[in-house]
């Protein structure tokens, strides 16, 4: 399974993750009460969504009594960091240019230390040069 498939969430998965991130560990019934009823979906749908998130590695679960209690594996920030890495990976790793995004500096090629040092010298020289008439 590609990293994109693992991390990128559908609308319901996102709602479940948002609820787990804000409310903490949840069993399926409490999650259903919080987001399922409002959306008019069944308990089974919420259960299969949480199961899917567990298989994707975004939720972990423990059996308490007869029910599973689900908890987020990553913090919201940790999830954001992984997605940011995926954006870089998508831009760097694709066979064609990722034209949908323009990065501040090219994500696929890096200037070496020598080049960067030379650029810094050029900038310093420019800063030090007396300014001409406006």
């Amino acid at each position, binding site marked *: 399974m590609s990293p994109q498939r693992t991390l990128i969430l559908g609308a319901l998965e996102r709602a479940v993750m948002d609820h787990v991130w804000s409310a903490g560990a949840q069993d399926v019934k409490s999650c259903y009460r919080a987001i399922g009823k409002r959306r008019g979906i069944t308990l089974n749908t919420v259960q299969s969504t949480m199961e899917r998130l567990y298989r994707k590695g975004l939720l972990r679960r423990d059996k308490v009594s007869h029910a599973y209690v689900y908890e987020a594996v990553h913090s919201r920030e940790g999830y954001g960091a992984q*997605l940011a890495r*995926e954006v870089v990976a998508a831009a760097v790793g*694709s066979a064609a*240019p990722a034209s949908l995004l*323009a990065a501040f500096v090219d994500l696929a090629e890096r200037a070496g230390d020598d080049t*960067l040092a030379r650029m810094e010298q*050029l900038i310093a020289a420019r800063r030090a040069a007396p300014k001409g008439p406006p």
Partner: protein
Amino acid sequence: MNPLLRLALLSATTLVVFGGAAALFASLAYPRARARLATLPPDARARRVLAWAALPWLSACALLALCFVPSFWTLLGLAVDHCPVHDDGHVHLCLAHAPHHPVAPVEWALLGGGALAVGAVALRVLRAQIATWRAISALLRVAGGEVPAGGLVASAEPLSVTAGLVWPLVLVSTGLRSRLAAPQLQAVLAHERAHARRRDPLRLLAVALLGAAHAPGIRKLLVADAALACEEAADEEAAREVGDRAVIAEAIVAVERLLGERAHQVGLAVGMAGCAAEARVEALLQDPIPAAPVARSGRLLWAAAAALALVAAFEIHHITETALDLIAR
């Protein structure tokens, strides 16, 4: 075969032939034209590169339209119907006398080859965009709204991108925000806002897709030149907004250093010679290239070329029909 469908297939064959010829011309002429393009301001350069990318498509469509001019005049009663002077077996690229020949194997080969060559590249480009958009849209959903016309992403990755085609959004990571000096961050945001205003992702996608008609080497040059021109144009706009060209250059070096650290951590190749960052910094440390005034002679030249093309439409029509006759038989 339905005469209209046959005419459509013959027109498509004509487009493939004209487009191929224009792509061949671009293969020979573009490497020389790059030297002249380099003397233009970045915004004008970006537009010219887009025009070069579109050259096979535009010239093929224009020439095909010219081929139909004689029959269009005939339909309007402004010219004598010339088709009856051909022998019966002649291929007609004509609105008044639709072709009736069966499609020749060479024609099928041209149509199939053209569709495959262009389709394969276009498919690869679109797949790359879908993968990028999936990642970007997921990131947008977790972004906070602290960046004007965009979002702030909680991530240590030094990320700063403008994403989207029609209404691009700016995404900046907390990792980048916390590690740049305030003037540099301002420079980065001004640069990204310039990309969004200019709709650079849309321009770059257009070059990548239109470039499908070019030879692979030229396509690569066009995409790289368009990307550099868009970056430099955004640099120029950011420099005007911030009022200091050197601070944009400093921000480029600072972000390069941050990304270089990450590249070392994740094992990416570092140290490519002649990278875009170097060219941008050098451009920023020089005075901006002044925009050339629109030359009246240039407009007159275009008007004269269009008039000449209309006058030569009958000749173009005949030459094309003769070439198609050789292909279709």
